[in-house]
Each structure stands twice: as C-alpha cells, then as structure tokens.
C-alpha cells in the first residue's frame, strides 16, 4: 500500500481529462500540456561545488520546482583480499611497482596520450561494485520503499555497468577509494524524479576531486594536502578544459502510440503506453587516443554507449477508467429490462464491447505491454546521433565546474 501513496499516478485527473491528454499527445506532432516539443527537456538551473564538506557536489533545480542535491564523499578503504586473487604483492619487489606508479601519475594528468597508454593496462586495474555506495532520499517516502530502491538501483546500475567509474577508484593493489554518493530530493516528487537525480549525480561526479596521491606503489597511501592540486575524478582534456570521459546519464522517455516524448512530466506519464529509463555514457576509450581530433570537431563526434535499460511501470495502468455510454446506467444500460429481448441482447453486446474494445474519447488504462517496434524506436531515438543525449550532454558541459 505504501507504494501507491507516493505513486506518480496520483495526479488527480478524471478519466475525461486523461482521455483528452492522451488524445492530444497522440496527435502528430504531439501537443504537450506545457507546450514543449517532443524532444525538449524542461529548463533547469544547475550549479556545482555547493557543499564544502564533500569531494564533489551539485544542485539542479527544474523549472517545475523539483530540486535535488547530490554530494560525493570519498574514503580510503583497504581492498579486501580474496583467496584465488593474486595475493603475491607482499613478496614483490618495489621496482616494478614503482614503474607502474609513474605511469599512473601520467594517467592522473590525463593527457590524451596517457589515456591511451592507460587503456592498455586497464585489465589490471579492476574495481568492484561495492566500492560505490549510492543512496537516494525522497521526502515523504520511506527509504526502504521499493520505488526508491528501484530508482537507486537504476542509478547505481548505470554507474557500474561499464566498470569505468570503479576503475578510477583504484589507488593501488591494497587500497581503493570508497565513494559515497548521496542524493537528496529537496522538493516533494512532483514528477518521476529519475532524470533529475541522474543529472545531479552526473554533475556531482564531474565536480568530484580526490586528493593527489604522493605515495608510490603498494605502500600505504599518502596524499598531498594541497586541495588546489587535487585532480578531478573525471579528468579534463587539456585542450578545452573539459572532461574527456564523463559519467553516465539516465534519461526517461515514454511513448504514446507512435509518438516518443522525452522528459515526461507527471501528467504525461499518467497516460503513457510505455516508459523506459535509458542510461548512456559518452565513450571514454574512443575519445582517448584521438582526443585532439574529437575536441576539434566538436561534440557531435561523441561515441555513445548504451549501458542499461529498464522499463518503468507506467502509472497509467493505475488510472481510473472512464465509463462508455453503452455501459453507463445513466444512459440506458439500466433500462435493459424494459426493452424487448432482441434489443436487450444488442445492448448487452454493446456493454461487453465497452469492456473489451476501446471507445473513442473514453479513457481506459492500457493493458498488455509494448510492442517490440515501439520499444526499439524508443531506444533508437535515445541513441540517435546528434539527438537528445548530445543536447543534454552539451548543456551539462556548459555548467561551470568551479
């Protein structure tokens, strides 16, 4: 029951309003209640570095008043040793480990060349999913509520899917950074909060800096206490001062009929046929070796990678159905007894069709799933070159990371 209370379906729209909204979203082009185009995001205000006590932080405020803060804190943690891992590093000489450390130093500076070099040894640096801990708090909802857990699982799934983030947390073979990402929705959830939380996390991770490592090899880590020298977790390319690799973002996209709408509001989700959350990242490995070329030719050269897709249970399935005239007592369904038997049968047949077949202008919660073609179109639209993802990433790049 708890899940139904905060459920986004509890927009108080009548069946008639839902039918109207659904029909206007079915038009070509769709008419959205707030006048946006199908690919437009709601305008947003973003800033980073707002929490002095965190390694990285961000705040995003959507125009509809939803607002979220994300803070990233890092702690050094000893890497658990497992039987079966190569646990020989205690016997190993320092020389080899030292060489490796020097390479890592270059990696930290993140010249495009260093990235290419680093990719050769990537197999060696391996992170674990447990190194990132993500919590989401949504006001008015218990933090073990399944909806909140689902959102948190989706966000961390995107962060962990390609293993790129945890690889960056590797310090040496004995220690790693443990990253705590805490996301708080400040406002009540006026719409499905997933895109907001994802974008906030993205910015917070971009702004995250970890202290510069001074120790070498596998010795106990020792850090530079000059915060100004701390490198970014996602280092920027020197030519443009922008991050070369970026953390993933998760977008919410829904379909009504064959129309595909991005960043749906709560009211639009209430009439969705299908809603998907799609996580994408802009490829770091491809951008690395040819970093300069990619920088010169602009953001359209970004190579996107698909990380995860989840179906969101569209709240439209919980909306109250409208009653067609044929089945409505006020319009003659109650007068069946007064009619002749043939007319009675016909009326009864009409009442049956009202239950099974859609009547125009009468809202009925969608049944069944989404066809394959629609699902493929949704994902294709997200991954389109020069599409919405590029737009969003461009917009986020413009945010000053302080």
């Amino acid at each position, binding site marked *: 029951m708890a899940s*139904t209370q905060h459920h986004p379906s509890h927009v108080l729209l009548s069946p008639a309003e839902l039918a109207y909204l659904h029909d206007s979203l079915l038009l070509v082009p769709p008419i959205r209640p707030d006048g946006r185009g199908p690919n437009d995001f709601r305008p947003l205000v973003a800033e980073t570095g707002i929490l002095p006590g965190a390694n990285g932080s961000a705040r995003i405020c959507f125009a509809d008043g939803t607002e979220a803060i994300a803070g990233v804190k890092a702690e050094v943690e000893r890497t658990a040793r*497992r039987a079966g891992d190569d646990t020989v590093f205690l016997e190993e000489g320092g020389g080899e480990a030292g060489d490796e450390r020097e390479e890592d130093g270059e990696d930290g500076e993140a010249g495009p060349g260093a990235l290419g070099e680093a990719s050769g040894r990537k197999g060696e640096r391996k992170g674990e999913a447990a190194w990132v801990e993500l919590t989401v708090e949504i006001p008015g909802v218990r933090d073990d509520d*399944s909806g909140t857990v689902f959102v948190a699982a989706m966000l961390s799934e995107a962060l962990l899917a390609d293993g790129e983030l945890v690889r960056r947390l590797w310090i040496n073979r004995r220690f790693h950074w443990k990253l705590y990402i805490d996301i708080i929705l400040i406002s009540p959830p006026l719409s499905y909060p997933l895109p907001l939380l994802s974008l906030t996390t993205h910015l917070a991770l971009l702004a995250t800096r970890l202290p510069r490592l001074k120790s070498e090899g596998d010795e106990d880590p020792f850090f530079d206490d000059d915060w100004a020298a701390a490198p970014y977790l996602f280092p920027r390319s020197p030519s443009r001062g922008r991050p070369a690799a970026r953390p993933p973002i998760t977008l919410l996209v829904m379909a009504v009929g064959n129309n595909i709408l991005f960043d749906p509001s709560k009211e639009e989700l209430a009439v969705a046929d299908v809603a998907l959350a799609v996580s994408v990242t802009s490829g770091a490995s491809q951008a690395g070796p040819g970093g300069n070329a990619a920088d010169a030719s602009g953001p359209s050269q970004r190579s996107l990678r698909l990380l995860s897709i989840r*179906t969101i249970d569209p709240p439209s399935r919980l909306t109250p159905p409208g009653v067609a005239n044929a089945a409505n007592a006020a319009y003659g369904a109650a007068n069946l007894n007064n009619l002749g038997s043939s007319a009675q049968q016909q009326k009864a047949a009409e009442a049956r069709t009202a239950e099974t077949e859609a009547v125009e202008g009468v809202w009925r919660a969608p049944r069944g799933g989404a066809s394959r073609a629609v699902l493929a179109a949704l994902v294709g639209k997200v991954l389109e*070159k020069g599409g919405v993802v590029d737009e969003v990433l461009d917009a986020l790049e413009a945010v000053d990371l302080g």
Partner: protein
Amino acid sequence: MTDRRRINGPPGETIPPFFDDADRAPETAKGRFRPSNAIRKMFLKTGVTPSASGSAYLEISTSAKPGASGLKLSCSVHGPRSLPRSAPFSPHLVLTTHVKYAPFATRQRRGYLRDSSERDLSVHLETALRGAIIADRWPKSGVDIIVSILEGDQERETSRSQGDEVWEMMNALSGCITVAAAALADAGIDCVDTVAGGVAALVQDTDGDESQPSIVLDPVPSEHAKILAACCVAYLPTRDEVTNLWFRGDVPASDMELYNSLVEKGIQASRNANRVLVGCLTESVGEGDTS
C-alpha cells in the same frame, strides 16, 4: 578450574586451513553443454501450496557442471481479496509483489529482511505482471504475490565468479516471472496472456579480445568467461508484446543491430519458457477434468 558447563572453543588461537591449490588446473569457464539457442530444462508444477489461492513451483535443471545448482522457485498467490478498510479506494486490483531469497539460497547468506536487490527484483516482477493482469475487473481488491527463491542459480565451489551476481539476478527474475504467471493462472486471475521471462546474453567464451562475442539464450555465468551484456524480457506471445525489459551491459550505441538481436533472442528464450508454462497449465486443467 576449567569451565565444564559449556562447550568451549580451543584455548589458543587457531589458523583456518588454507589449501594450496596452485597445482590444480586454473579455474576456467567450463563451456556450454547445450546449443546457444536452447534454454535449460525446466520443471513447472502448479497447485503446490494448498492454503494459497494459487501457487506454482519452478525448477531449472542444473548445468552439466557439478557443483553448480539450478534455480528453485516457489510462488504463492493470495487473493484477490478485499482491501483493508483503511486503504484508499482503488479502481484496480492492487498488486503487491514480494521476492525473497531464502537465507540459504546463495553463497553468501541472505538475511531475513529483504535487501535492496530483492526489493529491486520485486519491482521488476510487478512491472512484468501488471501488464499481463486485467486489473480493472477487480476494483477495491488486492492480491499478494510471494516468490521465494529456495535455491539460487550459483556456482558453489569457486571464487572465480566475482561480479556475477548481477547476471544471476536476471536469471532469477526471468524464473520469477514465469513461476508467478503460472501461479496467477492457478489462482484464476484474469490475464491478457501468459507472461514468461527469458534471458539472452552477449558472451565471450575465452579470455582475451580475439574471440568474437556471441549471443546465447539462458546464460549461466559460470559457463562463460565473460558476459558483456544481457537482457531479461517478459513477453506476451499471443499479443506479441513486451511487458518488462531490463537490459544491462556495455554496447556501442551505433550498434543498434546488436541490441535488437539481443532483445530478439530474449524474446525467443521467453517463448521457450512459455511453452513449458502452457504445457503445465493444460496438464493441470486436464487433471481437474478427470478428478
């Protein structure tokens, strides 16, 4: 004076035995023993819990490798029954799903309280089933669907399979969907179709980059060197619709073909599972007629 009332531990410290198995052949993926387009055999039976209004039990055969166990799931459906008086009005059947691993089901013990991965699974299951149920035939009522995972789909002996939990979750979800659909049918709750789960994965069979990744149905993580991407699909065969899609992995966005064929294979796996489901349901209907 020794304490004789209790059974005490040894007085000194002990060192747990550590077996040096360096001379044994290194643990490698054992390979797949069935064709890439076949799912493992499964056993499904409805009506196993008399006190529930509908129930089902699903067992997926173990792989050929000894020490790896198959998935064993039991599902019970309680309801439809009227909502408590305190609950707000609902024009639909209120679906509550509950997925729980038994504490002994996996290599690492699970607590009695549901952890976040189990809650996550129940949301996935709810999404998959909500599309199949005709919920507006039961206003003001609720149904509880409880799936217990008695035995997880895990390899017991090695420490090799680090990070496989995610892929095992997908296998568990597809089992949950199939068994819950059988239990729903057993409870006589109207559905548009029987929904079944299927998993397909993009795997690499040998370590190293030279081998070409291939797509297999119903992947067992211990049988493959590396799983690159996987998707779990809940599919309604007669309507040709997907009620739940869960994809995870790392696929270049330019390669939509790869993604689409992965989903297609997931649907194929789901069709195979659905055949077992329909067979089981017709069988139980036949039994009902004779008795």
